[in-house]
């Protein structure tokens, strides 16, 4: 609804005359877009509906669109069985700790890159940019060997630390911190504030928009990440939601209707985040072109 009001108050280049009844082109376009969006949404809607079906409904042929009986017990069962709470808490823990760690070390590095002059700064910054080009998948084996030689396989830290320092995060934060006036930092120094105090009390609050973007990407990525936790979490007690869903489904130890309910529940947190932070997410992607 808000977008409706917004768009009608603004003049778009497509319509020279603001407030007149929709033209035929507009009607066709809206209908077309609605149909396309339904096609894009349909699999997700189908999936959510499936999560409310019982086993008989799920295997009925031809498939039923709506469940004959709404099997809410899929959800209650999921919570009772299979350590679901444990996987959920693992995901929450790893996502939270990893994101906080990323924000802290990325912003510290970004602060040094943007507001200090030191030997090797430009070289290190170029190196950081170059790292954006190395895809994790390519160095999966050697990273795994490093993690394993440090004894971090099958630990939370093994899942959290290796990807905590993101080159893109440093880049986004550095670009943003460049816009913070040096005078502000200088005057705090003259007032006798220590370097870390300046960073924590002045720079971090001012960099909040950029921190939000980095946080959102970190949360999305960590929550959904699959390969890395799959490799590191070998003990079932360390499984994150995606790992648990993939393995439980693959091993057929959990009834399919329960797996569906678990999957739908795993989408809800990111969906919430998207609804509330849509603007930041979209701006962040638009500005940086990263995931």
């Amino acid at each position, binding site marked *: 609804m808000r977008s409706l009001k917004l768009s009608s108050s603004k003049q778009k280049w497509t319509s020279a005359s603001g407030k007149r009844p*929709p033209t035929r082109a*507009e009607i066709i376009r809206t209908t077309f877009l609605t149909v396309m*969006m339904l096609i894009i949404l349909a699999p*997700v809607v189908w999936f959510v509906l499936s999560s409310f079906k019982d086993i008989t409904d799920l295997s009925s042929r031809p498939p039923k669109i709506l469940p004959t009986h709404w099997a809410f017990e899929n959800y209650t069962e999921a919570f009772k069985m299979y350590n679901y709470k444990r996987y959920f808490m693992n995901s929450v823990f790893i996502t939270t700790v990893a994101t906080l760690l990323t924000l802290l070390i990325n912003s510290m590095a970004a602060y040094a890159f943007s507001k200090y002059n030191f030997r090797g700064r430009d070289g290190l910054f170029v190196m950081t940019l170059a790292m954006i*080009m190395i895809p994790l998948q390519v160095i*999966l084996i050697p990273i795994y060997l490093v993690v394993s030689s440090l004894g971090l396989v099958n630990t939370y830290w093994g899942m959290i630390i290796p990807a905590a320092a993101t080159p893109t995060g440093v880049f986004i934060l550095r670009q943003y911190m460049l816009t913070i006036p040096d005078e502000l930092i200088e005057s705090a120094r003259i007032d006798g504030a220590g370097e870390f105090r300046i960073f924590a009390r002045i720079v971090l609050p001012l960099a909040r928009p950029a921190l939000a973007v980095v946080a959102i990407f970190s949360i999305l990525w960590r929550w959904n990440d699959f390969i890395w936790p799959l490799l590191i979490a070998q003990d079932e007690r360390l499984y994150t939601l995606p790992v648990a869903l993939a393995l439980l489904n693959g091993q057929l130890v959990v009834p399919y209707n329960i797996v569906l309910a678990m999957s739908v529940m795993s989408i809800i947190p990111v969906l919430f985040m998207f609804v509330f932070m849509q603007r930041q997410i979209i701006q962040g992607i638009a500005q940086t*072109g990263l995931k």
Partner: protein
Amino acid sequence: MKTKNKVNRRRPSQSWRRRLTPYVFIMPNMAIFITFIIWPALRGIYISFFDSTDGRTFTFVGTANYKAIIGDPTAIEVARATATYVVFYVLIATTLAMFFAIVVNEQKFAKGFFRAVLFLPVMLSPVVVGLIWNDVLDRKVGPLNALLEAVGGGSPGWLIEPKLGMIAVIFVGVWVHLGFYSIILLAGLQGIDRSLLEAASMDGATRGQIIRLIILPLLKPTTLVIIILATIHGFQSFDFIYTLTGGGPFGATTLIVQYIYDHAFQVPIQYGLGSAAGVILFMVIFAFTALNFLLGRKRDAI
């Protein structure tokens, strides 16, 4: 870099403690970079010349791993599947993203809603994507085949026949990433000066002419970005394919990253061979990125 001017270039004349501060600030981040990105990247190149089945003992084999990959019929299949996937994925994803971006940009009614729907699949975990499409594409109880049967289209085995498996994987790949590219393009479209478009339409240009002669050329830098991103994403595709088809049917959707993964983490473990495949993948991605970039630049010059 324009932004450089803003950096405080004055060398601080303060004590050594003050001079140490920036290093303290970048230390944690750089330590992780070096330990978990740079060192592994270099080590990956190094171990691609060795043979190792346990990650502890390494036997030098020279270029044998590379030769083994080139001579491996499976690897040739993987290369073919990867090439097919990347070509169709990049073409379809960028064309559709461009199309949707232009249409949504012109849209006034419920623009934000359409944009949000387009973006929804981007936020799903690859595991959930795999589950969703396994459900939808199921040969017997999937809704897609139910629809097809209703119109007399038979019930194709989407995840059972190799060719259809590849089509399904390309389609799902596009479905997942479309919103991401569209949003980058939408931002590019928003940056186009509206007075230009209004002037053109006053001069009697048709909608098609405006798109072809003004919007597309002005959007070229953004288009280049999404082509580069799509190429990189295409070559790196693995996780949702792994959960959707597991690389099957009959290896038809096993792409290069899964080849690396399989050699590293499935018995018989061959770290050296997997690393060599990783080095090859990196060189291919690098070459294509450079090529895209150069072609984009060259056409600008003309």
